[in-house]
């Protein structure tokens, strides 16, 4: 599926793996911004950790020459998403306006088909009713739905921030500026490893970073056309 430029925006994230220190600030910021419940230890052991964003850590080499590799993984907002055609109710669908993948929580019936068909396994199922231990319930974001039990959820590129930014620009009758919309993870990243923007805006930071030599896409061979680009140098790695 060739990418066609339309009137909307092509929201894109750049993940500079060379800059990532694996500090997990983005994960915490995402939980806070998107009302993602904190899973208990038992749930994590059972393989149900609820993170829209996770830092996958891989070890390379044998002791004592061990290198840690960090790979922040979240919804890749595929241009050719495997999760979309399988949903029987269109709860997972492609927004032609934002050119990202959207999960409509109130439409979801919880067949979990999308979760099976996501090669990145970034779709999270609400096995339980969401629980926020005090005082976390005091900081729920009113702009984001608290998901009911039995629905799938996933990273939305902070759609609430995108929509709010676009609506505000619309009200003020001006075009969107690059950097005006920043998802919580990118905002929280201390090393600026996450950069967000509209790839169709030629002057945006992401548009200029995408052609980088270090650029690759996760599981590119599957042809999912992710909107998340990873940057990684040949020899640089964390741990040296």
């Amino acid at each position, binding site marked *: 599926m060739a990418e066609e430029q339309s*009137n*909307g925006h092509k929201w894109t994230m750049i993940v500079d793996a060379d800059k990532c220190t694996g500090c997990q600030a983005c994960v915490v910021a995402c939980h806070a911004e998107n009302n993602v419940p904190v899973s208990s230890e038992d749930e994590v052991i059972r393989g149900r950790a609820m993170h829209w964003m996770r830092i996958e850590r891989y070890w390379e080499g044998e002791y004592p020459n061990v290198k840690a590799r960090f790979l922040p993984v979240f919804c890749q907002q595929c241009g050719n998403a495997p999760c979309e055609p399988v949903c029987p109710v269109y709860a997972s*669908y492609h*927004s*032609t*306006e*934002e050119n990202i993948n*959207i999960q*409509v*929580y*109130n*439409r979801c019936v919880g067949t979990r088909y999308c979760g099976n068909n996501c090669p990145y396994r970034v779709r999270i199922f609400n096995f339980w009713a969401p629980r926020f231990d005090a005082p976390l319930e005091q900081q729920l974001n009113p*702009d*984001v*739905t*608290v998901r009911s039990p039995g629905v799938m959820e996933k990273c*939305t590129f902070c*759609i*609430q921030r995108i*929509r*709010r930014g676009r*609506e*505000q620009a*619309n*009200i003020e*009758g001006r075009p969107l500026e690059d950097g005006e919309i920043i998802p919580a993870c990118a905002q929280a990243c201390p090393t600026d490893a996450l950069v967000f923007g509209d790839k169709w805006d030629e002057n945006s930071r992401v548009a200029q970073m995408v052609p980088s030599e270090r650029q690759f896409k996760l599981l590119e061979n599957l042809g999912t056309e992710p909107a998340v680009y990873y940057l990684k140098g040949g020899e640089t790695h964390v741990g040296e």
Partner: protein
Amino acid sequence: MRRVAGLSSRQRLLFGGAVLGGVAIVVILLVIVIAQTSAADEQPIAFNHKRHAENGIQCQFCHAGVAKGPVAGIPSVEKCMGCHEYVATDSPQIQRLHGYWERQEPIPWKRVNEQPSFVYFNHASHIAAAVSCGACHGAVEEMTVAEPVVNMNMGFCLDCHAQQENKDALWDCAVCHR
């Protein structure tokens, strides 16, 4: 009647039971529908929209947030007192307002229009698109106590969105659901 008369007593009993059951179900449904549609909650102060509109007060004077952000807003007690410290102070309703003011309490208004938690509505966008307040809220200036006039469900929203120029952009689920 001939048919009913031809039935045995047991059949008649069954028939009667079925009719009674049907009537009971209809009555219960009616009660539920009426309970759902009528504004049963009484406001703490019988605020009269009509009176204020007649005196030339614009909607946005009190609901000041409407053009600036998602929420139109309910005026603070302070705002009410801005006029009512002097205006109509002898009315019993205004005395109630004074009571809240003196006790330094917010007025526990009952919500009139409510959307489910997964629906996000932005007032400012609609004001910017020149949608009049009455398009959704009805003729509030004719009402004494504000009441919902339309059923603000998805069909109602989409009816209007479908007529706009940028129909496709407004048809996106993420416009309202996030």
